[in-house]
């Protein structure tokens, strides 16, 4: 049974903390509007992917253990990122394969962890968010959100509910080339991938590019701005929470 007012812990993610706090505040607003009691555990830093994906299980496990500590007592853990959400939901438990106790705790946490937008629609049953907006947007399906968490229709539904027109790319599901440390380890390949992506974004004719993952957004915004594109880039939560006035688009000055 869905509790009337579930206690939700926000996993801010290291990129939002460092780079774009407004996304965190947008997440809080959306969750509260949906009737959640939101708390932000202080003892959080990063989900551990940089270590986990570089083969350093020790750091990843250490970070995993502190996540289990900090996020243990809530009804849900919500993450404004498909990538970090996927890490907590699918990968965290595998870090504790040799420790049944921690593994069980990690599995319990994984089950209660959700990506922000899909949490609002699939768990809280939200059909619409408050407010209205106009203009055209194109939505990039970030890889982990799409393939690990099944985020695809949910953000589009809410965006259309606000009155926005969605102009799809030819291939919104293809990777933008960010890939965490990939973009600095293989910058040439990454740049080619993001250039293919921005060509698709431009061809869509949309005024604004949205996605649910800040890493991908920084990558695509960085490339669009380098190309001199006028397409505005934002995290989907900013738009859904009606907070586009609070901060200029990514890669632009206020």
């Amino acid at each position, binding site marked *: 049974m869905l509790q009337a007012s579930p206690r939700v812990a926000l996993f801010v993610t290291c990129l939002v903390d460092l780079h774009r706090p407004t996304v965190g505040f947008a997440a809080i607003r959306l969750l509260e509007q949906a009737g959640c009691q939101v708390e932000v555990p202080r003892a959080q*830093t990063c989900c551990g992917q940089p270590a986990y994906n570089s083969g350093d299980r020790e750091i990843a496990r250490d970070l995993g253990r502190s996540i289990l500590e900090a996020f243990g007592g809530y009804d849900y853990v919500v993450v404004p990122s498909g990538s970090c959400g996927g890490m907590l939901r699918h990968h965290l438990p595998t870090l504790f394969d040799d420790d049944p106790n921690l593994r069980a705790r990690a599995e319990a946490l994984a089950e209660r962890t959700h990506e922000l937008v899909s949490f609002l629609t699939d768990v809280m049953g939200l059909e619409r968010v408050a407010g209205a907006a106009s203009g055209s947007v194109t939505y990039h399906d970030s890889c982990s959100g799409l393939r690990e968490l099944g985020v695809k229709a949910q953000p589009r539904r809410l965006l259309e509910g606000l009155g926005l027109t969605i102009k799809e790319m030819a291939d919104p599901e293809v990777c933008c*080339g960010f890939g965490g440390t990939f973009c600095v380890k293989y910058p*040439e390949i990454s740049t080619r991938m993001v250039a293919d992506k921005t060509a698709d974004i431009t061809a869509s004719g949309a005024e604004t590019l949205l996605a649910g993952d800040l890493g991908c957004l920084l990558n695509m*915004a960085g490339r669009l701005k380098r190309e001199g594109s006028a397409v505005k880039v934002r995290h989907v939560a900013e738009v859904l929470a009606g907070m586009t006035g609070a901060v200029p688009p990514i890669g632009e*000055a206020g």
Partner: protein
Amino acid sequence: MFSTSPAFKENAHKAIADVGLQKALTRTKPHFQGRRAKAVEGLPEFERLRDIGRDIKNHTLANLDFYLETWAGNVERAGGQVHWCATADDARAAVLAICERVGAKTVTKGKSMISEELAINEHLEQHGITPVETDLGEYILQLRREPPSHIIAPAFHLNREDWEESFRRAHTDLAPDRVFRERRDILTEARAKLRARFLAADVGITGANFLIAETGSSVIVTNEGNGDLTQTLPRVHIVLASIEKMVPTLEDATNMLRLLARSATGQDFSVYTTFSTGVRREGDLDGPEEYHVILLDNGRSAMLGTEFQDMLRCIRCAACMNHCPVYGVVGGHAYGWVYPGPMGAVLTPTLIGVDQAGNLPNASTFCGKCESVCPVKIPLPKMMRHWREREFERHLTPSAVRTNLALWGFFARRPGLYRFATRIGAGVLGWLGRKRGRLSRLPFAGGWTAGRDLPTPEGKTFFARYASEQRRQRGAS
């Protein structure tokens, strides 16, 4: 085959600058992806078939010793011979011994990735035997002395102009006004040249898509029919196969074939599917006098029981590379050895060592597209990550990466200190970008800023703002 995998980055650099290659990649990619998507759409039970395929392979791998023995017994009952080869050297020696014993001068060959793994052409040539590739793609690569760049479309990287140029150079009897406009023109010319070679060959070598335990058969699929001529015309048929090609029954093979054709080329079934069982019996219209299977291990059995076992389910359909955005940018040759793309990124380190091929499992964004199209649901990204873990354990990860990770790990494990450091970092970057909201250059971030700007942070971290907001709220209440 000689490996250039350690030079993956340089290879990728050249590939990105190669206009012809980029043209070929742009042309071919949507073709493969579109056809697979259509085929999958046309078969509602495709998802279930994937589970069946995975389960067949898992069951076979769990009982591989039993099925290998059953299969070998059946091969021998049908008059064939099995050559158990632990290494590539053993396999080369076995092939050569057969060819020399029957006095072979020319050997026709169907497409086989194992033959690339063995570099069998070079080996035969060194011993005075002429190998003739009969698959159209392989044929042109032999003319050009290039390795394949794709596991089912070996000449994936070539454009029509390249074909024409190679033919005109090698087939000196060609009339200057002869046109090569379509694939059919190319095929006709190759067929004319190959016909005489088929008839003259003493030995035919093919690969195997599957080995069937219950009948002792080998199965190949082609779209050109060259495989049939390769294996039925010469006196001797040699099959090159690795141990993981095994399936228990004919029915299992049929299920796998349905998956294979759709995943590979988007066909319901390949044009030619040929089952070979032993030697020609009395009354048979065709078939070889000798039937040999070179059964290659070459490091595969060592994957059983490890975190890499799932990789042995691979049926070499190439869907993973056809859908891989990294392969789509660099093509197959950049990977530097026989197997490119995601499946190569997992398999190559097993076969030639992670010290040689460490770049391959690292050059992935873990976008997961490969796993989502793999007909036998191999968790390719997970296995690439396992290779990164092995590298890390063995201290093969570059020292700069290790140092950065350790430094970052030190802070990330200490939230208080981390808050402090990020507050400074975000503040400095935010200040640097205050005019434009982005930077075009930043020391130590050259990789990022070579091809894109770096959007700068808002300035204050989330936690700094959140803390002051909480204070304000407490003050107000």
